[in-house]
């Protein structure tokens, strides 16, 4: 299996501890997810990707919402913001603009991102903010003990749909492709090595990168289990998929059933990021967050002139 997404580029020198190891990225707290939860694989893959890219932990900010999956920042040894349910992408956008030299990675669940948080998601995509957004999509609301989610398949029985859901699910892949995300991929907790490569590609990508991860909830989703996914997932990189083919990307992204593709569906590199287009970030004074505050005398004088 060869699934290199993008060649690792050089990372700026930094005040990182002399020796980075995989362990460096592990948080102090052991995840309290249920044994077997798909999210263990995701946090491990993210730690591996960051290590392999050699990014110093203090230059990384992981932002999440609320949900089982959103507990992830607590298990990382990087800066973290564990925000409100549904708000991770908005907070992350602010953080990225506040300090555009940080690597900002957003993590969360399908309910968090595609349910309550969908408005921020849609608008962050079209803005092409330089964020990596990892959604641990278990097609269920885990933390609230098992209700229908926007990606639950029609007919699925959950605590809030005991007779089966009557709603068509969102498919985040085509939605993201059409919505303006510039790196749109899917991974599976059962394929951790592949996930690491997908994550590395997403982190290195300049622009909004969505990685939807099938991360089974072993406690509440008895339909979409490892066993269910295992025979179905097919790695796009092994099938010669061309991630610049828009229609093909939508078609493969829409596939569901006996074959479900994972990998990089869509990437475009011709679109500048929001940060690229904002001149205030490029006046040579570094991140906004660390600039000198206050107005110069000239600036102050000019403002007062306007009032006269």
């Amino acid at each position, binding site marked *: 299996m060869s699934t290199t997404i993008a060649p690792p580029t050089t990372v700026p020198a930094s005040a990182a501890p002399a020796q980075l190891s995989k362990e460096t990225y592990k948080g102090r707290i052991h995840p309290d997810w249920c044994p077997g939860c798909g999210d263990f694989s995701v946090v491990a893959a993210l730690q591996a990707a960051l290590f392999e890219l050699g990014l110093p932990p203090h230059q990384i900010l992981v932002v999440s919402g609320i949900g089982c999956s959103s507990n992830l920042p607590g298990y990382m040894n990087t800066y973290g913001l564990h*925000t*409100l349910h549904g708000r991770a992408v*908005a907070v992350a956008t602010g953080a990225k*603009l506040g300090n555009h030299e940080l690597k900002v990675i957003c993590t969360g669940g399908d309910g968090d991102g595609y349910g309550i948080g969908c408005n921020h998601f849609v608008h962050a995509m079209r803005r092409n903010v330089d964020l990596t957004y990892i959604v641990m999509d278990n097609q269920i609301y885990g933390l609230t003990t098992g209700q229908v989610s926007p990606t639950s398949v029609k007919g699925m029985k959950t605590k809030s749909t005991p007779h089966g859901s009557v709603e068509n699910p969102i498919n985040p892949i085509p939605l993201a492709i059409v919505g303006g995300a510039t790196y749109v991929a899917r991974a599976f907790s059962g394929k951790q090595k592949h996930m690491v490569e997908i994550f590395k590609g997403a982190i290195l990508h300049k622009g909004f990168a969505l990685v939807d991860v099938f991360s089974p909830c072993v406690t509440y989703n008895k339909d979409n289990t490892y066993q269910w996914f295992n025979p179905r997932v097919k790695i796009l990189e092994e099938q010669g998929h061309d991630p610049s083919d828009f229609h093909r990307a939508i078609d493969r992204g829409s596939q569901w059933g006996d074959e479900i593709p994972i990998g990089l569906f869509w990437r475009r590199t011709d679109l500048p990021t929001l940060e690229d287009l904002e001149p205030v970030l490029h006046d040579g004074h570094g991140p906004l967050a660390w600039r000198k505050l206050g107005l110069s005398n000239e600036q102050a004088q000019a403002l007062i002139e306007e009032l006269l």
Partner: protein
Amino acid sequence: MATVDFAVGIGGENGQGIASAGDILARIFAGRGLNLNAYNAYQSIIRGGHTFLTVRASDGPVRSMGDKIDVFIPLNQDTMDRHLHLLRAGACALYDREKIKPGVAAAGVQLCPMPMKELAKGNKLAANTAALGATLQLLGIAAEPLEAAVTRQFKKKGDAAVAENIAIARAGYDYAAQNFKAFPWQAPRRPKPLGVITGNQAIAMGGAAAGVKFYAAYPMSPSTGVLMWMAGHARKLGIMVRQVEDEIGVMNMVIGAACTGCRAMCATSGGGFALMAEAIGMAGMIETPVVCIDVQRAGPATGVPTKTEQGDLWQVLGAGQGDYPRLVVAPANQLDLFQTIPELFNLCDKYQCPGLVLSDLLISEGTASVDPGELDCNVPIERGELILPDGNGAAADPSSGYNNRAYLRFKNTASGISPRAVPGVPGHIFVAATDEHDEDGTLISDEFTNPHTRRMMVEKRARKMQGALAELAPPKLVGPENAAVTLVGWGSTQGVIREAVEKLAGEEGIVAAQLSIKWLVPLHVAEISRILACSRTVIIVENNYSGQFARYLRSETGFEAHGHIRKYDGEPFMPHHIVEAVKAQLAGQTRLSVPVHEVNA
């Protein structure tokens, strides 16, 4: 003391250039060094509706739109019908003699019909320019400043438009000289020219002076002016300005930016604030300083988007679930807004909590003159225990905070304040979580039952407000302690209350004192209680139905006012509303006065 105090009132439909006529007058009056106040009563539609703008000026202090109109310029019949009856002897009404019929005016009102079509040379939108010319003539002001102001106003539209409008203004000026009687007084002049500023500009400039680097907003009247100013100045001042998908996104982005160390701000009105409440609680929980301005308008729901009210106090007091520290402040006027924002940022940085500002349409969209010398942009900037990588955080041991070497971001200190590193600083890694957490940021809800840690953290956060209170200027009584009546207000009503106090003394011989309460949370309970306990009759003046401030004051101090003056019809108080209500209450006629706004509906 004022020698001359006069007001011009212009009314018509949206789209008849009323706001720009008001701007021109304000510039001219301020250019003469006069103090002024302008208020535009307008509607939430783009064209049509009824708009009435009052510009009041004087060489003495001006703190509200006042009680009277000296020059009345109705640009349509509707305006004539609604307002003429309010003119008193000595006032003039300037109007288009072909299109508008005056009604019956009070004795001594000078009716000044003008041949607008002729004067404006067929330019239908220029009647207001001709009327401005006539106004200056009546006020005894030379035509030159009008030409300068017209040039400034129309320069975007090209030289031809400038020339045309100057000619029209001149024609009006000359026509008035020949046909109307000038006022027996002249608009005075003072040596030092003043500037003009709206409250929204003041908020934005205050933010810029405080070092705001990130401003986000979703447009919402009457707060949109802050966004406009910020957008217009973003590149020059190095401020990131973002219009966001909704107010939830606004507040969350602002918090994200603030978490990295930026000073970050946003403004909205009541409906947008409602959507931000959950995130404001987050800022309280993760101890992140942000500043948010609620520019109040008449509610509930969409309400009356272009009308003023002080109806969001309880919403701001109750913003978000649970108890958490926050600062709430209600500045009194435009200059106060400008000066409060930097002060609030310093406090928010120091106490690591959200700072909420209550403004309202009256002062945010209202215009005031301002002495440029008072707009000190070189404000002190104090960031509290912030640890930045290029400053106090640079020398950190890069391996502290890694793995099992926890950094106590939420350290339980005597003051409640914990040193605060931001992402990017080596050696201080932590997670800021909205779940209750321990000193190092670990979620207590996940790890084990810990009522003791929970209690400790609630108390740690709350303790910060004790320090803040000690630092805030307590309110002061203006006037004698044994005054016949003490008028208590908060926020934008300060100016009109002050004028009412002066009127009560000057015209009615009633000695009144004024207590203005600016810092609402934390509240100076001891000082306020002391002052009110000495007062003979306390009347609370506020611009809402339910007495939101009176009830809050009582919740904190137990003090029950002797009377209330309230208004909730969308229009601001005028000084005489308060004067008459005080008289009625002192005469024992009522304990609750709701002045009627004098306009024919």
